């Protein structure tokens, strides 16, 4: 492999046996392979067998439990922890891709100290000493500790540390949902974000909250949403999304209503007014006290403000009040100057509908960060020179805050900055000392996502680089500063706190048992009782929010990227190449413009447009998107890094640079800003993975309405390619052909009596979140190829989420449909007979096999695949030193040893995770038993937060997949081609009356 020395060190610690980089070498077996045994046998590590460690994902504050799959001492894959209360075994795309950050080639490999302009590797001893002296020298109150959201032990330890040195801490989180918290204070006197229980709701109303993308706890909310909104025997919840832009979340809505930007609150108030006036729903007694406050907000008045007709408003109100419902504020709907009013209005709406305490729960202590306003305090203090020492952990305010605030300028005023950052980013570039933290995979820690839920993190492997757990560093520092902390190591510190926790839980068992069990389960959790809330005085002061762009300008909505969050994940190449759920764009930024608006400006897709706000201007290619109000343009946040690893630096533009610096009343940043567009002469081919966004009536993504089902729409499912009825005689012939083919596939070893692997995908649950795509890449060593190659149409993801638009023209409502498209493993696969060398063929258990090492690369199979799910290695992504090598040291350590890494010139595709199937078969055979249903789970199925995917043996009538496939909604894509796919899609169901 590339770096012999590193590897040796790695192995010595971990004792890898066998060629760890086996897969990488591809077809070359020349050089002598060395076998390096363990020094001492590690009891829970068997070479060739995966070990799973329960831990917690730290990609965001949600706190999803994970099982870290470890092979030969290397974490190779994350899987959701089925027991974890937040995510129940599911993970999002960001989490699935996060191992690339663990093994990132640009991670800080050791402590670093400033030398001249740059930072140079340094001894930990020296670095720590430097920091300690600086801390001691600093006058009281002049030390600030800025860090991202922290809970549990590290939070406590930082607290102790900061108080001990008499400093100030500042929790920076780019999306702190200040408006929602502010509103909750006002209306209910609680400074927190409530928990929304979708599963219990029959009517979901989101006022711009992107709860399927970034809002609070996406995986948990996706599951809840899918359970409520997914179609099951005639019933499903209705979901209405209210936002000027159709966000990725809104794409799953049955109704998307685009009000005038900023007027969502008015709509909420009008609905509340209707409910109160007509006494709809089950409002709490004191709801009537709001009557006066609401009186003025009649639907008619609201109609003008919101650009939604009164009838619709009344209808919404009635629907909302009718059943158990939930309304969500949040997301960019609550990120404009006046947004706290919107949030308050929605709270009131929930209250009068009697949702508080049922679908909307307080008392879980959901808080993220101190809010944007405190960051202003910080810059002011820094510029005033009153900050001598700054410690930064897990925060990148320089990039993830409006450039107008000029955090970097502020940092320039601080004499000494120490960063715990794992990466060199725009913020740690200002550091004088860098004390890199462990990755989540490498450290002892705990996490408390909410009241009653304690998660544990444990090191699944030895640190990749010479890094140290920040907890240990803090303890070390306080020792150096002459204090003697109770615990020697951070692990002990955590355990001490857990000992207390055990006491509070009243658990009598010895601590070791408690600890061991907690480790195995991934933590301990209890059902926290929600707090009962009553109206606070502020509730009666609700009024309608106002946002208006400067005359003649457009409203720019800067929304958080569901892929990069606030930009912290832009350094993960898999995520860079993950098509945005809405625009299917990769590797860059774009501005979404409504086609009509584009016409007005004479802008074509791909034209580079100057977007200018009062704060700044950026040049970015245009993406024409019908899912916008014409008076709105939208840009994602998170790209445009100036110094953040090889993958993020210089990719796209930084949308924060357009946003105003001053904090809104409620203490949050403003994501609405009025901008003007000017077209430049430049044009670029967009790096998007989508060919056409309309189905051309080919029934790829099929949908029915609830009303339609009631009227028997499913009795005659829609079929494409039967435009002309087939004469009876020909039908007869076709049957004969089919029979002959069945006989053929019954030949000898191909007798399909035993197994035929199949899959169903329920489109009424799929939210197009991309988790499956990332999971597939991680499981199957799928390489990334970079923007230029994506432009050339060579993206490699084995499963892709096809996003089709319906309607949206001449007044009819815009509808979006998602279809996860993967190899259909056809019974009569067109790709098979054309392969001259049997590299593509049909396996006895009904898979469409692809033998990489037999493939010569004629690509005939690719031509003949109607689903276009075969991907060719145009370049060598697998050979170290090759220009397009995708696994720079040490990233190759995360390669799945059970999957061949494909070299150039061969075709590859989804295998239904054949390595998992064979693995399970080996296990079963060794144990002398048969496979049981559900024993084999594909990577996409395993991670799907919406549980849309079922996989199993179609020949087994009892198997879940067989039963699901029998659903009347079931259809196969391009069925008319008689390819007999093994993948059955269940039609999307839209909660609409009209058939």
């Amino acid at each position, binding site marked *: 492999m590339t770096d012999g020395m590193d590897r040796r060190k790695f192995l010595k610690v971990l004792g890898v046996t066998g060629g760890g980089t086996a897969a990488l070498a591809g077809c070359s077996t020349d050089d002598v392979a060395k076998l390096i045994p363990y020094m001492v046998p590690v009891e829970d590590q068997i070479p060739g067998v995966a070990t799973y460690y329960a831990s917690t994902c730290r990609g965001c504050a949600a706190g999803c439990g994970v099982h870290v799959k470890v092979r030969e001492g290397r974490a190779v894959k994350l899987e959701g922890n089925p027991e974890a209360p937040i995510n129940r075994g599911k993970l999002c795309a960001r989490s699935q891709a996060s191992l690339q950050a663990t093994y990132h080639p640009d991670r800080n490999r050791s402590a670093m100290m400033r030398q001249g302009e740059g930072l140079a590797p340094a001894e930990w001893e020296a670095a720590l000493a430097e920091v300690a002296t600086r801390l001691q020298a600093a006058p009281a109150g002049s030390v600030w500790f800025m860090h991202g959201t922290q809970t549990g032990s590290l939070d406590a330890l930082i607290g102790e540390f900061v108080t001990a040195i008499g400093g100030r801490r500042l929790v920076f989180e780019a999306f702190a949902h200040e408006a929602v918290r502010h509103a909750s204070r006002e209306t209910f006197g609680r400074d927190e974000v409530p928990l929304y229980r979708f599963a219990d709701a029959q009517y979901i109303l989101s006022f711009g909250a992107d709860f399927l993308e970034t809002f609070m706890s996406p995986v948990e909310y996706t599951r809840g949403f899918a359970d409520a909104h997914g179609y099951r025997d005639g019933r499903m919840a209705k979901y209405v999304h209210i936002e000027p832009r159709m966000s990725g979340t809104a794409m799953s809505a049955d109704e998307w209503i685009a009000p005038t930007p900023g007027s969502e609150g008015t709509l909420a108030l009008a609905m509340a007014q209707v409910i109160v006036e007509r006494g709809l729903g089950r409002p709490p007694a004191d709801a009537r006290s709001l009557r006066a406050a609401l009186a003025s907000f009649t639907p008619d008045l609201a109609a003008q403000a919101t650009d939604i007709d009164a009838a619709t408003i009344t209808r919404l109100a009635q629907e909302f009040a009718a059943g158990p419902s939930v309304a969500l504020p949040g997301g960019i709907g609550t990120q404009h100057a006046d947004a706290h009013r919107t949030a308050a209005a929605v709270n009131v709406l929930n209250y009068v509908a009697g949702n508080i305490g049922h679908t909307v729960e307080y008392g879980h202590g959901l808080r993220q960060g101190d809010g944007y306003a405190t960051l202003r305090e910080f810059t002011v203090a820094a510029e005033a020179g009153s900050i001598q020492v700054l410690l930064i952990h897990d925060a990148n305010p320089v990039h993830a805050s409006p450039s107008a605030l000029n955090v970097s300028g502020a940092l320039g005023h601080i004499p000494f900055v120490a960063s715990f950052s794992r990466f060199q980013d725009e913020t740690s570039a200002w550091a004088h000392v860098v004390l890199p933290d462990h990755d989540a995979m490498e450290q002892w820690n705990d996490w408390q996502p909410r009241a009653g839920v304690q998660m544990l993190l444990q090191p699944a492997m030895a640190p990749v680089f010479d890094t140290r757990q920040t907890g240990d560093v803090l303890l070390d520092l306080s020792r150096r500063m002459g204090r003697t902390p109770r615990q020697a190591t951070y692990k002990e510190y955590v355990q001490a706190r857990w000992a207390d926790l055990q006491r509070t839980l009243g658990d009598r068992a010895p601590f070791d048992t408690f600890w061991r069990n907690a480790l195995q389960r991934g933590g301990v959790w209890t059902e926290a009782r929600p707090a009962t809330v009553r109206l606070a005085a502020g509730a009666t002061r609700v009024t309608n929010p106002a946002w208006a762009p400067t005359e003649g300008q457009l409203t720019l909505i800067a929304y958080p990227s569901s892929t990069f969050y606030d930009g912290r994940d832009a350094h993960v190449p898999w995520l860079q190449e993950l098509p945005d759920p809405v625009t299917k764009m990769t590797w860059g930024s774009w501005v979404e413009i409504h086609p009509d608006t584009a016409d007005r400006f004479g802008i074509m897709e791909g034209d580079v447009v100057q977007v200018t706000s009062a704060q700044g201007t950026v040049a970015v290619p245009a993406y024409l998107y019908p899912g916008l109000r014409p008076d709105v343009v939208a840009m994602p946040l998170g790209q445009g890094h100036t110094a953040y690893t090889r993958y993020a630096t210089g990719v796209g533009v930084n949308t924060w640079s357009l946003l105003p610096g001053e904090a809104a009343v409620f203490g949050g940043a403003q994501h609405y800003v009025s901008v003007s567009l000017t077209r430049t002469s430049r044009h670029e081919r967009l790096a998007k993975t989508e060919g056409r966004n309309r189905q051309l009536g080919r029934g790829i993504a099929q949908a029915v309405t609830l009303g339609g089902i009631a009227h028997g729409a499913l009795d005659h499912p829609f079929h494409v390619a039967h435009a002309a009825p087939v004469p009876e005689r020909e039908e007869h012939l076709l049957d004969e052909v089919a029979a*002959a*083919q*069945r*006989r*053929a*596939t019954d*030949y*000898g*070893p*191909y007798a399909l009596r035993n197994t035929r692997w199949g899959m169903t995908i329920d489109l009424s649950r799929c939210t197009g979140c991309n988790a499956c795509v990332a999971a597939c890449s991680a499981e199957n060593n799928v390489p990334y190829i970079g923007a230029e190659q994506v432009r050339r149409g060579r993206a490699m993801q084995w499963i892709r989420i096809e996003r089709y638009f319906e309607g949206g023209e001449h007044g009819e409502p815009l509808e979006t449909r998602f279809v996860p498209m993967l190899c259909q493993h056809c*019974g*009569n*696969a*067109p*790709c*098979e*007979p054309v*392969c001259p060398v*049997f590299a*593509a*063929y*049909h396996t006895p258990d009904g898979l469409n096999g692809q033998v990489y090492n037999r493939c010569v690369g004629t690509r005939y199979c690719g031509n003949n695949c109607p689903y276009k799910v075969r991907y060719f290695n145009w370049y060598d992504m697998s050979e170290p030193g090759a220009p397009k090598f995708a696994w720079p040291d040490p990233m190759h350590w995360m390669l799945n040893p059970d999957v061949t890494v494909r070299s150039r010139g061969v075709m590859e595709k989804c295998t239904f995770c054949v390595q998992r199937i064979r693995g399970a078969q080996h296990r079963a055979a060794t144990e002398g038993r048969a496979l049981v249903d559900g024993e084999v789970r594909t990577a996409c199925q395993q991670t799907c937060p919406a549980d849309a995917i079922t996989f199993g043996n179609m020949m087994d009538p009892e198997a879940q997949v067989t039963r699901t496939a029998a659903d009347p909604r079931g259809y196969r894509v391009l069925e008319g081609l008689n390819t*007999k796919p093994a993948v059955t899609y269940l039609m999307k169901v839209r909660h609409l009356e009209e058939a």
Partner: protein
Amino acid sequence: MSAHPGGVLAAFLHEDAAVSAIRSLKELGYKDFTVYSPAPNHALMEAVGHKISPVRLWTLVGGLVGVTSGFAMTIWMSLDYPIVVGGKPIPSWIPYVVIGFELTILIGAIATLTGLAVHILLTRKAAAYDPRFTDDQIGVFVPCPTERRGAVEQMLNAAGAVEVRVAA
């Protein structure tokens, strides 16, 4: 080829002359004379009067071998390591027709040429030669013992040869 038995070599410019010469040679009972011509010529062939060349049998046999081996190979090979593709029968003769056909042509053609070579070698006769015969003249070589050469020379001259010489 110098090692010829020796005899009389005549060159003709005119077709009919050569033809009459050949006729009279046959009357005189000469069988193993050799006729050269720069291009295939019906009158001459007629005069010489060979039976139809057996080369065509080679073509026939070659073709039959080709078609059988074509089908045999394809069917045996697909049964030897049975792999199902696209739900088609393992040995399916229809697509194999193409292979059978191509091999018919290939082996047929090769056989034909082999036949050509073989028969030319079999019917080769030692005879005297003159470069003009590939240019514009017809040649006739009559192998005969010295005592009878005079008669032959005279007969050929009579037939209208442009040149007659003894090729020893």
